[in-house]
C-alpha cells in the first residue's frame, strides 16, 4: 500500500488503472474532467498503452467503450451528468446487449449546479436501464469501486454505472493505493456468443428477458456488497438511510456516533434484506441522499406514507441543492451554531471572460451588427462564450444544451425569425452542432451560424477540440456553400471588417457560416 493525496476523480482513475483498464473514453465536463486528465498525465497509463484520448461527445465515448468491452477488455466511459443524456441511447442499449470486458460508465452529478444547467441525478438512469449503480462515499471507496465494478460487470455481463458528485469528484483525500496491479485483459473478440450484440428484435427480446432475470441477482449482490453496511443503534424512533456522500454528512452531524440504526448504501439496486430490517425495526425513516429524492420517493410510494419516510420531500432536508453537514444536523434537530447575517458589503462576483479572450471581440462585432437589426434573435450554446449572456455583452437569448444553438436557430427561422443567428464554440460544434447544420444545409435555412473557433474546449480547461485546423473543411463537407463560409480574426484591429462581413451574411437569405478564429489565450499562454 502507498498513500496518495487524490481527488475523488483521480482515485477512481487510479483504481481503474490498477484494475487493468485498457481504455478510457470521455468528453470533458465539470466535475468529471479530472478522471481523464489524471490518466493522460499518468506515466503508468502511458507505459501500459492505455487508450486515453478525448472523444467528440459522450455518445461516441459510450460506444467506443462498448466496442472495447465487446473485444474483451476493460473500459471506462466518463462524463458529467448531462452527458449521460447524450450517451443515453448507447447506455440503455448496452444493458440489453450486455457487456464482455468490464465496462464502467461514470457520470458525475453537479447538485447545486456549480457549473451546470440542471441537477439531474444519474442514479435514475441506472434504475431505468436496469443496471447496478455504485455511489462512493469517499475517495477510498472510489478507488476500490473501480476493481469491484469491473468484476461485477464481467460476472453479470452488464455495464455498471458509477455515480459521482461534485463534492467527492473535487475533494482531495488520502487514498491507500494497492501496489499489486491487475494485468490488462487479452483481446477476445471472436467468440460466437457475441451474437447477443445484434439487437434485432428476435435477439433483443431474449436479451431483455435475460436482463429482467438478472435483477434478483443484482439485488443479492447489493446485499453482499462491502460498500453497503447496516449498523445498529439504540434509538429506533428513527432509522437512517444514507447514500453516497450523504453518509459522511450523517457521520459528521453525530461526530461518528449516530444513535440510530443506519443503512449506508453505496451499491444499487437497494439491498432488500438490510432495508427490510430497517423498516421493520424503526418507526420513521430519514433518507439522506445527494441529488434528487430517489430512494425517498421509492419508500414513500405514490400516495405518501403518512410522514413515515422523511427527507427532501418532507422539508426535513432542502428540496434542491447539494447537502451539507449543517442541513443534515438540522434534519435531526441537532443544535447548529447561529450564523451572522451576510454582510451587505458583499457583492456578486460572477466569472468573466479572461482579459484578451477572443470571444469578447467576437461579441463586440456581433453586437454592432445586431444593433441595427432589432428583430434578430441570437441562439447561444454552452462554453466560455455563454458568458456573452451577461453584461456588458447581453448578446444571446438562449442557452439550453450542447448543440441547441444551430437547431433552435433553424426552428426559429422556420417560424419566421429573421435574422436568426446561432453562436457556438468549436468543441460544442463537433459535439453536436454538425448534424443540426446538415439539416440547415438540406433546407438552405436562412440562418447564420457563428462558430467561435478558439481551437480548444476552453470552458473545462483547454482540452483538445477535434475540429482544430479544419473547421471550414468540415462545414464545406457538410454542404455549406463555400462563398458563404467566412473566416475572420476577432481582434480589435479587424473590428470594422468583421462587422461588415457579419452584416453581409446576416442579411443573406440562405445559410451562412462565419468562423471567428483566434486561439484561447489560456491555452496560448500555457504553450509558451
Amino acid at each position: 500500500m502507498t498513500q496518495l493525496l487524490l481527488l475523488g476523480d483521480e482515485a477512481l482513475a487510479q483504481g481503474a488503472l490498477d484494475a487493468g483498464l485498457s481504455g478510457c473514453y470521455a468528453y470533458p465536463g465539470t466535475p468529471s474532467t479530472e478522471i481523464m486528465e489524471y490518466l493522460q498525465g499518468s506515466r503508468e497509463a502511458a507505459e501500459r498503452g492505455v487508450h486515453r484520448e478525448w472523444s467528440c461527445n459522450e455518445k461516441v465515448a459510450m460506444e467506443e467503450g462498448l466496442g472495447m468491452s465487446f473485444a474483451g477488455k476493460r473500459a471506462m466511459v466518463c462524463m458529467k451528468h448531462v452527458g449521460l443524456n447524450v450517451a443515453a441511447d448507447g447506455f440503455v442499449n448496452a444493458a440489453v446487449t450486455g457487456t464482455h470486458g468490464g465496462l464502467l460508465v461514470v457520470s458525475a452529478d453537479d447538485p447545486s449546479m456549480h457549473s451546470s444547467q440542471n441537477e439531474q441525478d444519474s442514479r435514475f438512469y441506472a434504475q431505468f436501464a436496469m443496471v447496478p449503480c455504485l455511489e462512493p462515499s469517499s475517495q477510498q471507496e472510489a478507488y476500490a469501486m473501480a476493481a469491484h465494478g469491473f468484476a461485477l460487470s464481467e460476472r453479470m455481463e452488464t455495464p455498471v454505472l458509477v455515480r459521482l458528485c461534485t463534492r467527492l469528484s473535487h475533494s482531495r483525500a488520502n487514498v491507500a493505493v494497492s501496489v499489486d496491479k491487475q494485468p490488462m485483459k487479452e483481446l477476445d473478440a471472436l467468440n460466437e456468443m457475441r451474437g447477443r450484440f445484434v439487437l434485432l428484435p428476435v435477439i433483443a427480446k431474449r436479451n431483455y428477458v435475460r436482463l429482467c432475470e438478472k435483477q434478483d441477482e443484482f439485488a443479492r449482490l447489493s446485499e453482499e456488497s462491502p460498500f453497503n453496511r447496516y449498523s445498529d443503534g439504540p434509538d429506533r424512533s428513527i432509522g437512517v438511510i444514507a447514500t453516497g456522500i450523504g453518509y459522511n454528512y450523517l457521520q459528521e452531524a453525530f461526530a461518528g456516533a449516530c444513535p440510530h440504526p443506519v443503512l449506508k448504501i453505496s451499491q444499487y439496486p437497494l439491498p432488500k434484506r438490510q432495508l427490510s430490517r430497517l423498516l421493520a425495526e424503526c418507526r420513521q425513516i430519514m433518507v439522506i441522499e445527494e441529488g434528487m429524492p430517489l430512494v425517498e420517493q421509492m419508500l414513500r410510494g405514490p400516495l405518501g406514507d403518512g410522514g413515515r419516510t422523511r427527507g427532501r420531500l418532507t422539508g426535513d432536508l432542502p428540496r434542491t441543492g447539494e447537502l451539507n453537514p449543517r442541513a443534515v444536523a438540522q434534519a435531526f434537530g441537532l443544535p447548529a451554531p447561529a450564523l451572522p447575517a451576510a454582510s451587505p458589503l458583499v457583492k456578486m462576483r460572477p466569472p468573466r471572460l479572461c482579459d484578451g479572450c477572443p470571444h469578447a471581440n467576437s461579441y463586440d462585432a456581433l453586437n454592432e451588427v445586431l444593433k441595427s437589426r432589432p428583430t434578430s434573435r441570437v441562439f447561444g450554446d454552452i462554453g466560455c462564450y455563454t458568458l456573452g449572456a451577461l453584461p456588458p455583452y447581453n448578446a444571446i437569448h438562449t442557452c439550453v444544451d450542447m448543440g441547441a444553438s444551430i437547431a433552435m436557430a433553424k426552428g426559429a427561422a422556420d417560424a419566421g425569425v429573421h435574422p436568426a443567428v446561432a453562436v457556438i464554440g468549436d468543441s460544442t460544434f463537433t459535439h453536436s452542432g454538425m448534424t443540426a447544420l446538415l439539416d440547415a444545409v438540406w433546407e438552405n435555412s436562412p440562418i447564420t451560424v457563428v462558430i467561435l473557433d478558439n481551437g480548444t474546449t476552453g470552458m473545462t480547461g483547454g482540452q483538445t477540440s477535434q475540429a482544430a485546423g479544419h473547421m471550414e473543411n468540415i462545414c464545406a463537407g457538410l454542404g455549406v456553400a463555400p462563398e458563404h463560409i467566412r473566416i475572420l480574426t476577432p481582434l480589435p484591429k479587424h473590428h470594422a471588417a468583421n462587422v461588415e462581413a457579419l452584416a453581409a451574411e446576416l442579411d443573406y437569405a440562405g445559410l451562412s457560416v462565419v468562423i471567428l478564429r483566434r486561439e484561447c489565450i489560456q491555452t496560448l499562454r500555457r504553450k509558451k
Partner: protein
Amino acid sequence: MKKDIVLAGVGGQGILTIASIIGQAAVKQGLNIKQSEVHGMAQRGGAVLAHLRLSSDAIHSDLIAPGTADALIAVEPMEALRQAESLHPQGVILANSRPVANIGDYPELETVLAALRAYPRSLVIDAEAMAAAVGSARAMNMVMLGAVSPFLGMPVEVLEATIAEAFARKGPEVVAANRQAFAAGQAAAKGI
C-alpha cells in the same frame, strides 16, 4: 488534532497553491486530509473557495459546516467577508487587503477592511507589498501561508520544507523569495 480551514479568493489568485502546500505538509505529519476545491471555471475573475480539513482522526464530511472553521484565509478582502459565516466565533481571519475590483459595484475598500478588523481575531495585511519587499510580489500566497502557520498546529519546519520542495523546480532564488515571504507573514501574525 483537528483543524478546519477555509480559503477564499478570486479565480486566478492561486488559493489552491496555499491549500496544496498545507495538504502536502499534513501528509508528512501523518494527518488525514480532506480538501474540497472549486474547479471547472476556466474563466478568471469569479469568486473561488476551498475547504481544507486536517485531523489525526478520521474526517467524515468534505465540507466544513458554517460557523465552525478554525481559520479563514482570504487573498482578497471582499471574499473574506463573503466567507466570514464559515468561521467559528473564536476562529481567526487572515485577509489580504489588496482588492480585486473587477466588478462595477465593488464596495468602498476602507469599509470592507474596517468590517474585517472588527472581528475579534483578525489580521489584515498588504500581502503583496510584503512579498514585494522581500523579493517577489508573486509570493503573496506564501505571505498568507506564513500568517496562518501559527494556527495550523504543525511544526513550521515541515511547512518550510514543503515550500522548498514545491518551488524547487523554479530554482533557488524563487525558493528563497517564497521562504522569506512565508517568514514575513509569520512575523505579522504574532500577537493575534
